[in-house]
């Protein structure tokens, strides 16, 4: 009798240990330096930015995604997931109603939303990377949160290899062989990306020189300065290939015809979603810039098609 009792107790203990092994308490530091306590793996996730949504999908965790933003449009399957607001306006009530185990906030999530959700007992993990390396770290962290650590490591490794392949091929270039690139987000006024932006990193890693590397962040540039700097290449952002007002400006404005880039036909449209989201597609964005900056080394760039 006693032996049976001990046996049963042992069995219960085994079961307890096994389950405890499934959910483990972890503490992770997010991109705002907050220590977030989570019990991974989490099975109900809300994403508050398009890049977070892309990361979750890329890691194959989409079945856990219960809420996204109205800006999340990639991959197309996101359309079916419930919307909890846009990037800057978050419907806290709906977030709570979806009963998430973690909310993945982004760089544009208002800090007061983060605080309110925390107060309501919902763990918030902020992904706000500032360079490609931090994007890779964030992918690792999301993989840990979702309990797919291994998959995350493999993905990051593959991304690193692709980046390495690009930087290796341009490493032998001399400074004179690096064309100056002006990246334009909007034309009226000329709105451009200086140091400390992902665009700057793409241009540099693709073997170019940012024409506004003396400026920091997103800045409005005096139109005269575009002529004074006279870059070899101009990249112009468009949303989904449909809205290309700024691109048209560079092609049709008479004054700009004397610019080296316009003269040589080196004005390129780039998809804004692709180059502005710090998610798993940063590698794609980088190779796109590589094709634009050095078509003689990489394939020739094909701009996004009109819808």
């Amino acid at each position, binding site marked *: 009798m006693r032996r049976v009792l001990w046996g049963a107790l042992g069995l219960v203990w085994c079961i307890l240990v096994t389950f405890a092994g499934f959910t483990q308490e972890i503490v992770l530091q997010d991109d705002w330096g907050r220590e977030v306590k989570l019990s991974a793996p989490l099975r109900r996730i809300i994403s508050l930015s398009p890049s977070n949504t892309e990361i979750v999908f890329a890691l194959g965790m989409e079945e856990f995604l219960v809420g996204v933003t109205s*800006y999340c449009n990639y991959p197309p399957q996101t359309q079916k997931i419930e919307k909890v607001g*846009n990037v800057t*306006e978050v419907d806290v009530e709906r977030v709570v109603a979806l009963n998430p185990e973690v909310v993945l906030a982004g760089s544009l999530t208002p800090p007061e939303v983060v605080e309110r959700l925390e107060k309501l007992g919902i763990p918030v993990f902020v992904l706000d990377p500032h360079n490609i390396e931090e994007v890779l770290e964030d992918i690792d962290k999301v993989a840990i949160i979702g309990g797919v650590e291994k998959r995350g490591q493999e993905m990051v490794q593959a991304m690193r290899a692709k980046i390495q392949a690009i930087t290796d091929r341009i490493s032998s270039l001399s400074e004179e062989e690096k064309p100056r690139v002006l990246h334009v*987000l*909007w*034309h*009226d*006024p*000329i*709105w451009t990306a200086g140091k400390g932006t992902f665009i700057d990193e793409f241009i540099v890693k693709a073997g170019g020189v940012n024409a*506004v590397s*003396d*400026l920091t962040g997103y*800045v*409005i*540039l*005096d*139109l*005269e*300065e575009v*002529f*004074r700097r*006279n870059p070899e290449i101009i990249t112009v952002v468009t*949303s989904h290939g*449909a*809205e290309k*007002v700024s691109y*048209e*400006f560079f092609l*049709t*404005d*008479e*004054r700009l015809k*004397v610019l080296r880039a316009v003269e040589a036909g080196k004005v390129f449209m780039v998809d*804004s979603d692709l180059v502005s989201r710090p998610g798993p597609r940063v590698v794609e964005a980088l190779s796109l810039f590589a094709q634009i900056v050095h078509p003689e080394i990489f394939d020739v760039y094909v701009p996004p098609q009109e819808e």
Partner: protein
Amino acid sequence: MYMSHRRKNRQFLRLLGLVVGGLLGSIVFAQGVGGGGYSWHDSFALFSPSTLSTIDRTILFHIRLPRIIIAVLVGGGLALGGAALQGMFHNPLVDPYVLGVSSGAALGAVVAMVSGIYFGLFTIPLFAFSGAVCTAFVVFRLGMVAKRIPLETLLLAGVAMGMFLSAFISLGMFLAGEDLHQIVFWTMGGLWGRGWMEVRMVVFPFLIGVPLLFSFTRELNAFLLGEKVAQSLGVDVEKVKKWLLLFVSLLVASCVAVSGVIGFVGLVVPHLLRLLGCEDHRFLLPLSFLVGGVVLLWADTLARTILNPVELPVGIVTSIIGAPFFIYLLRRKKREW
């Protein structure tokens, strides 16, 4: 004590000469300002354009010069519109946007931006101009009571309409999503990138509006004595009001269409001139036009210089300088009472 007519005229001519000289000097100076500094060479390249490289010629003659001209015209148009409306309303707090022209223009621009309608670089100015003119017309109709236009009703109609349209502008911003920056930049008011195309767009309304407004000086002087007295002096008050509103709206709408909302120039410049003793509209209107041009030219030159190569919206510059200056003028006037 009243100065003699001739002495007053002579004084005005002297002041006019001074202001015209100041304007020409400012234009030549501003033409030399670029890249965060001043260059004599650029100023005098105006008189010898053939020696320049293609890039320099484009910068000096297709970017800087038309922008200077736009600044002078827009500043002049706003100040002239402000002076005429202040005289007509007999109220020094009126600015040229009082008919809701600025919010109408902004809404027009926002509609173009959010809907994605695009048929060339003049799309947004055209929408803004239409929005401004339509709004002025609606306010004008709303302000009309039994075929007369009582000024209080018109003012209140303008304010209410402005608020109503602002709500739609906010709605447009909310719905704009990734296009939000366009609206933000536009409403800040800037002369960035303005070229000969924009000069051509505004030149026609200016050629009509400015001389016609100048022709109303006698009537505006009569308004100074109050509407009833003006009526008894033989001025067809209601008719004059209608024409003035029409020309000012046309002028200000074309300004806003190419520059966005630039504040305080239209409010402060006529004020300043009145404080300098220029009450007579025969002098006030032309001087407002010229001084307004000088003021906006300097503000814009500052806007493209202080943070060079980064550029500030000129609307921010005029408001930062204009608002404290306006308060100063008010305080000074109060002390004199």
